[in-house]
């Protein structure tokens, strides 16, 4: 039986990977991909706790997380297309329209 802490550690490492990707990459699409990595890390955590506490609640939460991720990907990519087509910016650090 694999200990629960192994799954929590794995999801921790994956979450940190995704967070680093969001923080240091310049490319729009790779930032969104890093968000997907973070959502997957959260899913692993939810499903692992659902298995070890023998409850369905974690699996339900993971299903809803996947649905939200689909919506987030669609809207995020649409925003990327608008920004890119309007020649506003080609990288994340060039978007400063809302900067004060």
């Amino acid at each position: 039986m694999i200990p629960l802490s192994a799954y929590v550690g794995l999801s921790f490492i994956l979450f940190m990977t995704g967070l680093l990707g969001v923080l240091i990459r310049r490319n729009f699409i790779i930032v969104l991909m890093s968000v997907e990595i973070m959502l997957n890390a959260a899913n692993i955590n939810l499903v692992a706790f659902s298995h070890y506490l023998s409850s369905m609640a974690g699996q339900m939460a993971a299903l809803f997380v996947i649905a939200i991720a689909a919506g987030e990907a669609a809207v995020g990519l649409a925003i990327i297309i608008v920004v890119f087509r309007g020649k506003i910016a080609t990288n994340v650090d060039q978007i400063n329209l809302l900067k004060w």
Partner: protein
Amino acid sequence: MIYLLFGYFATVSILSGIFTIALKNPVHCGLSLLSLLLHVAGLFVLLNAEFLFAVQIIVYAGAILVLYLFVLMLLNLKTEEQYLHKKYPFFLFAGVAILGELLILVFQTPYGGAKGVATPEVVLQTRPSHAVGITMFSDYLLLFEIVGVFLLGAIIGAIVLAKTPTAPTAGADG
């Protein structure tokens, strides 16, 4: 055997995660994200979540990743010389701070709690997908409906955003 499988899935998913944020070419990043998603799906099988395994492959690897690759194809992004953020040492520092906070949380977790009723034997007796469906359409029905409305809003928002802007006098062709 299960240790071997867990080790394989965990190692490959961590490696593909690192490749996803470290490779320069966006298409290569997308492909290593695909590998990460498939191996996370394998972890779901080890955790007795067969329905989530199928959903992960169909929705994530099948729909979301294809969306990413389509946008990459449409935008034709060049691989740039400077692919890291200009102020990335500052953000690395922020990342280390969040890492410390998460470590404290991980070591304080009791790794336990109130046990539920859905033990693996019960779930196996009622079939995994059946158990997921019964739970989703009884206890989580309201959330399910809200997610449906949310997805409708996301679709409409994405279409409105990505629609090609036409001149107002060009007529109603869209």
